C-alpha cells in the first residue's frame, strides 16, 4: 500500500470537559477521496482546524508526507501543500476572483517580498490563475470582486485557490454547503477527477455526493471515529446506521 500523504494518530483535543477530538486516527492515501461524515457537533471542523494548524491538539501526531507538522503554523502547513477550503467561504472580498487566485499563485512561487513589479502585468501570476478559474468554471467571472460573487461561485473560487496552490492534499470542509442541486452535481463531477491530482479529505453533509465520490468513509461521532470503510461497509454498518444515518437510511 502507498505511503499515506496525511497520517493522523491518536489525536486528542478537549475544551474543558468536552472531548472534541477523542483519539482520532485517520489517514489519506494518494489518489483517494476519504470522506469524513458525522452528525453536527461530532468534531469534524475541530479536526480540520487541527490538521490545518489553526487549533493546537492536546496530544497525538499529525504527519504530512511523513513529516511532523505539529510545530508548524497555518501558513507553513499551507506551504507544504495543504490546500484547505473553508466551511464558510473565506476570501479577500475586495479583490477580484482573479486576484484571489493570483495570491495563491504568488504564495506558491515563494516570496511575497517583491516590491516593484505590478502583479497585473505579471503573466507568471495571471496565467496560472486564469487557468485555475477556467478549471472550476469561473473564467467569465474573473474580474468580479469576490464579495459580489454568488454563494456557489465563492465555493468554486475557494477550490480554484486550492488548485492554484498546487496542493498535495485537499482538505475540503463542506464544499457543497448551500449549493443548489445542479451546482452540487457539477462539483461532484469535478472532485471525482480532482482526486487524480491530489487526494481529498472531504467533510460533507451531502450523502449523495459522499456515496458517489468516496473511496473510504470515516464516521465521526462525539469526537471518535466509530467506523472506517468502503461505501458499502459504512452503509451496512450497524453502529453507523444507529448513530448517524438513522434506521430508515
Amino acid at each position, binding site marked *: 500500500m502507498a505511503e499515506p500523504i496525511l497520517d493522523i494518530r491518536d489525536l486528542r483535543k478537549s475544551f474543558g470537559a468536552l472531548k472534541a477530538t477523542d483519539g482520532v486516527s485517520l489517514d489519506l492515501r494518494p489518489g483517494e477521496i476519504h470522506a469524513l461524515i458525522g452528525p453536527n457537533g461530532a468534531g469534524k471542523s475541530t479536526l480540520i482546524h487541527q490538521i*490545518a494548524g*489553526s487549533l493546537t491538539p492536546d496530544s497525538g501526531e499529525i504527519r504530512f508526507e511523513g513529516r511532523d507538522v505539529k510545530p508548524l*503554523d*497555518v*501558513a*507553513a502547513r*499551507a*506551504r507544504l501543500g495543504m490546500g*484547505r477550503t*473553508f466551511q464558510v467561504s*473565506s*476570501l*479577500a*472580498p*475586495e*479583490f*477580484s476572483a*482573479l*486576484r*484571489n487566485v*493570483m*495570491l*495563491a499563485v*504568488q*504564495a*506558491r512561487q515563494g*516570496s*511575497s*517580498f*517583491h*516590491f*516593484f*513589479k*505590478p*502583479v*497585473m502585468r*505579471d503573466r507568471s*501570476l495571471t496565467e496560472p490563475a486564469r487557468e485555475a478559474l477556467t478549471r472550476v468554471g469561473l473564467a467569465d467571472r474573473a474580474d468580479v*470582486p469576490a464579495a459580489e460573487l454568488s454563494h456557489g461561485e465563492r465555493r468554486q473560487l475557494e477550490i480554484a*485557490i486550492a488548485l492554484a*496552490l498546487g496542493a498535495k492534499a485537499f482538505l475540503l470542509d463542506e464544499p457543497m454547503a448551500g449549493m443548489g442541486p445542479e451546482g452540487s452535481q457539477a462539483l461532484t463531477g469535478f472532485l471525482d477527477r480532482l482526486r487524480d491530482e491530489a487526494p481529498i479529505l472531504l467533510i460533507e453533509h451531502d450523502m449523495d455526493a459522499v456515496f458517489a465520490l468516496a473511496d473510504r468513509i470515516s464516521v465521526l461521532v462525539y469526537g471518535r471515529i466509530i467506523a472506517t470503510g468502503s461505501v458499502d461497509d459504512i452503509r451496512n454498518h450497524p453502529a453507523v446506521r444507529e448513530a448517524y444515518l438513522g434506521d430508515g437510511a
Partner: protein
Amino acid sequence: MTRETTISILIIAGLLAAAFIAQAMGETFYITLATRMAILGLAATGLNIALGLGGLVSFGHAAFFGIGGYAAGILATHAFNSEPLLLGLPGTNQMIVIWITGAIAAGLVAVLIGLISLRTSGVYFIMITLAFAQMIYYFAISWPAYGGEDGLSIYVRNAFPGMNTLAPMSFFLICFGLLALGLIVFAMLRDSRFGAALQAGRQNETRLAAVGIGPFRVRLTAFVISAMMTALAGALFADLNRFVSPSMFSWHMSGELIVLIILGGVGRLAGPLAGAIVYVLFEFALGGITEHWQFFLGLILLAVVLFARGGVMGLLAGRARHG
C-alpha cells in the same frame, strides 16, 4: 487611464500649479501653504501604507514624524554650534544626510514598536502604538540637551546641493519632489506582490495564512516603510518651520495624520494629499475667522464618515477598485 488615475494626477499637478501661480503673483505665503500641504501629504501617504493598504490603524505615527523632525533639529544644531555629535561624528546641515539619518532612525524604532504592537490587532494595536508614541513624547519633553519642552530652533534652513532652500519656491520644489517620490513608492507597493499580500491581510487574514503567507512579516515590513516615509516628512516639516518641538510627537499629530487620510480617502493614492489640501485650506480659511476652526473640521469629518466614506477621492473618483 482610469478615472482614479486621472483625478490623482490632477490633484498632484494642481498643487504644483498652485505654487507656481502663487510665485507668479509674488504671494510667498501661499507657496508656504502649498509646501505645508505637500509635507503633510507626504507624512499621511507614509501612514497610508500601513493604514490604507495594511489596515494597521497606527495611532502613533507622530513618533516617526517627530523622529524625522528631531533628526533635522539635532543634526542642524550640532552643525551650527560646530559641536561633534556621537562618537566624534559631526552634525550636518545637508538635507540629504538628515533625511537618511531620520528615515533610518525611524525605521529602527518602527522595527521595535512593530515587533511588539503587530502581535495585537484592532483596539489593542491602536492603544499600543499610541502608548509608544506618548513614551517618546514624554522622553522628548524631559530631555534638556535638546530643548526639552521648549524645542529646538533651526537657525538657518538646512541646505540642498544646488538650491537656495531659503527661497520659498525652491524649498517647495524639494518637498514636492519628495512627495512625488513618496506617491510613486506608494503606487508601486500597492500594485506589487508585497502589496497584494498586505492588502489581502487587511481584507482577510485567515485567507492570507491559508495560502501560505504569514501576515506578520508582511505587516512589519509595511510598518517600517510607512514609518520611514513619515519621518522624511517630519524632517521637511522641521525645516519648513525652522523649529522642532515635542508637539511633533504628540497624539494630536498622530490623530491629524489619520484625519488627513479619512478626509482624502483611505488606501487611495492621492487620498492623503487631497486630505492635506482640504485640511490646510480649512486651517487657513477658518483659522482666520475663529480659533475654534477645528470644531468645523470635526463637523466635516463627521459628514465624511457618515455620508462620503471614500473621502474626497470617493466623491471624485467613485469606489476604489482592485484590478
